[in-house]
């Protein structure tokens, strides 16, 4: 059952040099209980997509349009106050990049987790803290940690607090933006295990944003690969990881140094394009090993080459 469907989403920022096309016409869909991975490298627009869904836009937005269908409603039609009251944090919540460092240092972590309950559900403080304790148990923290301050917790513990904060209002979708990139590898594994458990127990749907495709394979049922503000490939993890079609996806996977096999990692020469003046045609063209001159000027469409497998590449569309 489709929970979230994004079509033709555009988010452009105003900069001194012109309009920066951070998210340029993407489509995505998320089913109930599913974890969708948004994989891409710096500047590809994955964080901006999350901001667009949560409507936490900065002041310098140049263009914001498209369709975000959630449970049959187009979120883009809602006013700011409607979105704030009904959707944000209650139906869709987010774990931000570096969130563990944005915890309020002068408030106890238990209170910070309980706060959304007090504010949005008018719960009294005692009841809210009780719920916070339950949530702490769920994320693997001892319940009496509710009385601790952020500086008394390690990085992994703080990340669990932040996850608890995102789950406290029982949202249907949680967006996680690089939830483990600031953590050590061994702690990272703990957190991904936790998320796997939560996925099973709470049946919450997740959008997992990361630059690490191996990490995406550890969490995601479906993967969308983003490049230069666009979705270049979207399909199940099996399809993406085992038979990637887009040259960027292929090279991205080939760049991962494998620990359990012997394969020299590859690389893609060059750098992603400037999003203020992106190339007119395929944005991966300058770096693509299969590039053909004639196709430089025309942008390839996103086509469904097999069931639930979308690719945006001339190799697969005429």
């Amino acid at each position, binding site marked *: 059952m489709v929970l979230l469907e994004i079509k033709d989403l555009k988010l452009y920022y*105003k*900069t*001194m040099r012109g309009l920066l096309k951070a998210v340029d016409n993407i489509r995505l869909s998320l089913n109930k209980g599913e974890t969708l991975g948004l994989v891409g490298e710096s500047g590809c627009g994955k964080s901006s997509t999350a901001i667009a869904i949560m409507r936490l836009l*900065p*002041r*310098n937005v140049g263009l914001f349009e498209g369709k975000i269908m959630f449970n049959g409603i187009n979120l883009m039609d809602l006013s700011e106050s409607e979105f704030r009251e009904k959707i944000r944090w209650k139906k869709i919540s987010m774990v931000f990049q570096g969130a563990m460092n944005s915890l309020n240092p002068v408030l106890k972590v238990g209170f910070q987790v309980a706060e959304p309950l007090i504010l949005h559900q008018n719960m009294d403080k005692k009841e809210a803290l009780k719920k916070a304790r339950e949530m702490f148990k769920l994320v693997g923290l001892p319940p009496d940690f509710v009385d601790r301050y952020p500086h008394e917790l390690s990085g992994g513990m703080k990340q669990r607090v932040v996850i608890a904060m995102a789950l406290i209002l029982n949202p249907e979708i949680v967006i996680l933006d690089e939830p483990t990139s600031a953590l050590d590898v061994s702690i990272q594994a703990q957190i991904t295990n936790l998320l796997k458990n939560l996925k099973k127990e709470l049946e919450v749907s997740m959008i997992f944003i990361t630059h690490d495709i191996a990490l995406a394979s550890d969490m995601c049922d479906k993967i969308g690969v983003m490049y230069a503000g666009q979705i270049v490939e979207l399909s199940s993890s099996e399809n993406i990881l085992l038979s990637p079609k887009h040259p960027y996806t292929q090279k991205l996977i080939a760049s991962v140094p494998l620990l359990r096999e012997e394969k020299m990692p590859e690389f893609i020469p060059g750098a992603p394009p400037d999003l203020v003046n992106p190339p007119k045609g395929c944005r991966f063209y300058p770096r693509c090993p299969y590039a053909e001159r004639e196709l430089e000027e025309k942008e390839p469409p996103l086509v469904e080459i097999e069931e639930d497998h979308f690719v945006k590449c001339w190799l697969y569309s005429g």
Partner: protein
Amino acid sequence: MSKYLRNTFSDFWASKVSKIGVFFLFIVITVSIYTLITFPLDYGVRYWNNPKYWVDNPKAAMPQWVNSFLGGGLLDHQIISTSVPQRSYPSGIYYMKFYEHVFDLKVDQFPTFLTLKLEKLVYYSSRTPTIKLFVTRPDNKTIELYRLVAEAPLPDEHPPYVRYAEEPKRILLSGETQLSYFLSEFLLKEYHVTFEPSEVTKIGYEKVIFGELYEDNFRPLKGKYIFTVLLHTLDSRDQIGKTTIIIGGQIYGFMGTDILGRDLSQGLLFGFPVALLIGFITSVLTTVIGASLGIIGGYIGGRLDDAIQRISDIMNNLPQLPLLIFLTFIFGGKLWVIVTVLVAFGWSTLVIVVRSMILQIKSSSLIEAAISLGASKWRIMAKHIFPQVAPYILSQMIFYTPSAILSEAALSFLGLGDPSIPTWGQILEYGFRNGAVFLGYWWWILPPGLLIVFSAVTFVFIALGLEPVVNPKLKRWR
């Protein structure tokens, strides 16, 4: 660097405040340049503090333009000179030369004083000539006002005898006792009223000369007055180079005068480059010393850092004013004393802030990279640390300028200033000292005060405009 500078400039220029600030600064600089070109550098000593230069001006006169607001009822200051006698003819063995000055009293005011000035008297005869001053009033009455015999030739002098050439002979008629007798006689003759000379002095000569007696009071007599300087001599070649009659008015000049008759517009103008200079020198010195010590102490650390910190703590806690009074007492009120004290007490705050910035930069990988390349401490401080704090230091320097200007004004106001240079603070101080506030001499008090504020505000605006450059959080999105 150019893109960085361009971005920096656009950040700075973006706010209205900086545009206003730059405009004000442009005014200040233009006026200062104009002043430095038109006035000699020793203006202060040569003119401002030289009472002789101002002797012909009215004292505490309002600016001329005030007259237009008050319906033109005030008397303008007049200086009437002539170099050529109107009439000259022989009379017996004598020769008479009449130097005439016409003065039209158009308003209902008495002149504030009357001065006769004689320049370059040249005479040939061995008998010294006599000079007399008469006035013919609009009512056709003539009064002899003053009589003077030129100084006799010295034993070793030869004709032509020159008198009053280097220094003009100035006779402040308003203070001469001769007049009291002449005027007393006049009053008796014309009005049949007895006024003793001492009483005449008390009433004021101007009232008698320029007024008519009406019911025990003197009313200004409007009309034409002709002041004649008569040179009574034996030799027809004798002459006076220039005779001048000065009628003291109530208004003078663009900004009026102070109690010494000094043209305030000149003093105020001169205050511009002085304020700029003091502000600039003080802030530059303060910033250079404070920033250098902050960088060196912060980077090198150890005992040197401790020493610098202790010294700046001490300087911060010393009372600035008593020390300044003490030093002024020893060295006299000199400009360099003020600047030195302002600098000495200013650098310590900058040291603390710069030092903390350095401590943060010190642990960055940029500095580690420089160390690993083998760079010496000094190279690191100059090439890698300094550019990072330079914008902050520059904005601090600009922020210090208004405080330096205000400090100097305050010190001058307290009487600790340098009397040889006219500054706005000095003008204010002199005004207050002479009771300008109580006497209502607003043109003496308001302009210097406003100019002090204006110059300070100029730099404050510029510094405010620089804030986004220095503080990245205030930057506009890019």
